[in-house]
């Protein structure tokens, strides 16, 4: 299959510290060079945002790029979209590229919504007749029909991004670059945007998707590129790379043992924190892979900085779509009487009624049950691996597809009381 994006041996160097150079700085550098003196003391520090990166995107494929902040994800997108140029190596593309790198770039506050639609669409590479044809669709997607003759400076920030996003998704690209833009607007608009992305995919548009929203990445992408410090760490099918990436993230959390660091994070009350959660088999041996209906034992390592009576633990098992099932002391009221210092609370789920995939353990802890606080974090992950036979399934559903189906398996049976009568015409 043809590659629509080919990135080969690309490196990108930046000067650190200042955004642009002053003439004085450059003149003094130049002067020192002429005089043959070493100007290292004032030489601007350089760093490599991307280093010897090679990958390609096939036609009709969605490639996700994951990595920590500053790993070089956005720089990579900018290199593909021709906004920035590589210091070394080459970037090639086939066809028309549209980037949803920042929606609303180029909206002018003084002009009306209507004017801005035309300007922004022209910036995205649409011709005037194309814009005229799609104008109504753009406006109704943005839900801004009544506001088209108002200057954009009177728009709310939500209206502003909706307009920009709507223009962007009405372009007709061969390759679509998406960077963290699915988080605009309210929940309903986000859902609509995600749907739109998926329909691009169905139409065979190749997509490069950068996001910290891992569920969205998992749902959208066929393959993942994981980069760290500008270098390729792993490139492969989404489930495998996602698993490795999450494992590394877990490790990072486990490594940051300093309680001060964790206190700063929003894991609940600052008086008591979950340091990490580890996954085990029923016999207590650590494990990351489980089989269908196997028990899961979680060890919740907490630290209480003062004595806390009746703290409230909440743990949920989740996938990219959110929590699937949970154990919450809010409901069962099985609080420990009192905790202080470091310790472990164990939680046993008697069975995992799940399809094969990667799952996450989210946890939070509250000073007491009344503390109104909700911001669970992914603290551990595990993989469920079982042959489909063990579910009693005979259909040919592969692992790759199971992430898009309902993941919880509750024993069931079909019944056919009308079989053989007129009601069931076989």
């Amino acid at each position, binding site marked *: 299959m043809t590659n629509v994006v080919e990135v080969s041996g690309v490196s990108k160097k930046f000067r650190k510290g200042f*955004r*642009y150079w002053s003439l004085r700085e450059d003149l003094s550098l130049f002067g020192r060079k002429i005089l043959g003196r070493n100007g290292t003391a004032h030489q601007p520090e350089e760093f490599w945002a991307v280093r010897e990166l090679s990958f390609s995107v096939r036609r009709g494929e969605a490639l996700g790029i994951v990595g920590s902040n500053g790993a070089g994800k956005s720089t990579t997108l900018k290199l593909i979209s021709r906004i920035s140029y590589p210091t070394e190596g080459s970037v090639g593309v086939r066809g028309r590229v549209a980037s949803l790198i920042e929606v609303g770039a180029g909206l002018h506050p003084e002009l009306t919504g209507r004017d801005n639609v035309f300007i922004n669409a022209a*910036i*995205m590479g649409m011709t005037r007749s194309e814009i005229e044809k799609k104008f109504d669709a753009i406006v109704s997607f943005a839900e801004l029909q009544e506001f088209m003759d108002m200057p954009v400076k009177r728009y709310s920030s939500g209206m502003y991004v909706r307009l920009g996003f709507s223009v962007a998704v009405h372009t007709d690209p061969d390759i679509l670059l998406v960077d963290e833009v699915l988080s605009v607007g309210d929940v309903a608009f986000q859902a609509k945007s995600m749907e739109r992305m998926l329909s691009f995919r169905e139409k065979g548009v190749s997509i490069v998707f950068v996001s910290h929203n891992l569920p969205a990445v998992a749902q959208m992408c066929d393959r993942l590129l994981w980069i760290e410090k500008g270098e390729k760490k792993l490139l492969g099918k989404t489930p495998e790379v996602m698993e490795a990436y999450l494992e590394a993230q877990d490790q990072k959390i486990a490594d940051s043992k300093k309680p001060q660091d964790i206190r700063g994070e929003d894991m609940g009350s600052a008086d008591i924190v979950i340091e990490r959660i580890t996954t085990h088999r029923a016999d207590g041996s650590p494990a990351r892979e489980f089989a269908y209906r196997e028990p899961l034992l979680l060890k919740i390592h907490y630290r209480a900085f003062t004595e806390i009576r009746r703290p409230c633990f909440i743990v949920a098992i989740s996938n990219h779509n959110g929590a699937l099932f949970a154990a919450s002391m809010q409901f069962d009221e099985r609080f420990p009487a009192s905790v202080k210092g470091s310790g472990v609370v164990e939680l046993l789920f008697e069975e995992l009624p799940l399809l094969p995939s990667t799952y996450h353990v989210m946890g939070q802890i509250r000073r007491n049950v009344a503390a109104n606080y909700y911001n669970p974090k992914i603290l551990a992950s595990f993989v469920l691996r079982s042959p489909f036979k063990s579910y009693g399934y005979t259909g040919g559903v592969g692992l790759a597809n199971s992430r898009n189906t309902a993941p919880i398996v509750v024993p069931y049976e079909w019944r056919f009381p009308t079989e053989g009568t007129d009601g069931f015409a076989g």
Partner: protein
Amino acid sequence: MAQLEALDVVGEQPQPLNIISSRPRLASSFVEFLSYRELLWTLTIREVKVRYSQTSLGVAWAVAQPLSLMLAFTIFFGRFAGMPNDGVPYPIFYYSALLPWTFFTTCLAFGVPSLVMNVSLVTKVYFPREILPVASVLSALVDYCAATAAFGLLMLIYRVAPTPAYLFLVPMAIIQLVLAIAVTLFFAAINVSYRDVRYAIPLVSQIWLYATPVIYPLSVVPEHIRTAYLFLNPMAPIIESYRQVLGIGTSPDLSLLGLSALSSAILLAGGYAYFKRAERRFADVI
């Protein structure tokens, strides 16, 4: 999937892999620029709309600037200092020179910061960057047309009738446009890396004004350096031609016009080449 691939082969020519990171030739850059003419047009309209919707006087500013300078020059340099005027009434003498000159400084004032003013575009979306300064120059053309229309009023007052030589205004306007684009591209590109340029521009245009026959006629420039003067300052032949056509009503010196066409074309090629070279780091340093 296999079906799709088969369709691909039958349905369309395989698209060539476009190596976007390699340095393009000037000619292919220009072809690309032309393919973005709709965006150029849209951004030009945007700039005109924004400029006139933000000011209460609107398009009147375009006329007020050369008109008030003309009045000041007429009173102080004309009446008080008795500047030689080659027999042309001072208001016409000055306005005909200020017309191209104001256009030129307007281009610099809006075109040089145009890249820096549109940071969000330059760092988020790809398009040939020269679109931005060129759109500024084209929008200055609207001001220029308004100021030219105002010249009609002066003609009525001084009972000057248009002559066939006025047709030369078209090639003159084109040469002046080429020169304005060349200089604007050059300084706009430098301004991205060195913000000092923004402060230097008013000074440079002030000195350039003195070095150009706007306040004085070309005839006061010593004869032995006049050729060098006209060659080194491509604005000088343009201004002199305007005075010839609008002031005296005769055809401009064609060798003068040819000279400025040549130097403007050379400057445009140089300015564009420099711009395209610098363009590759705009998004990184802006």
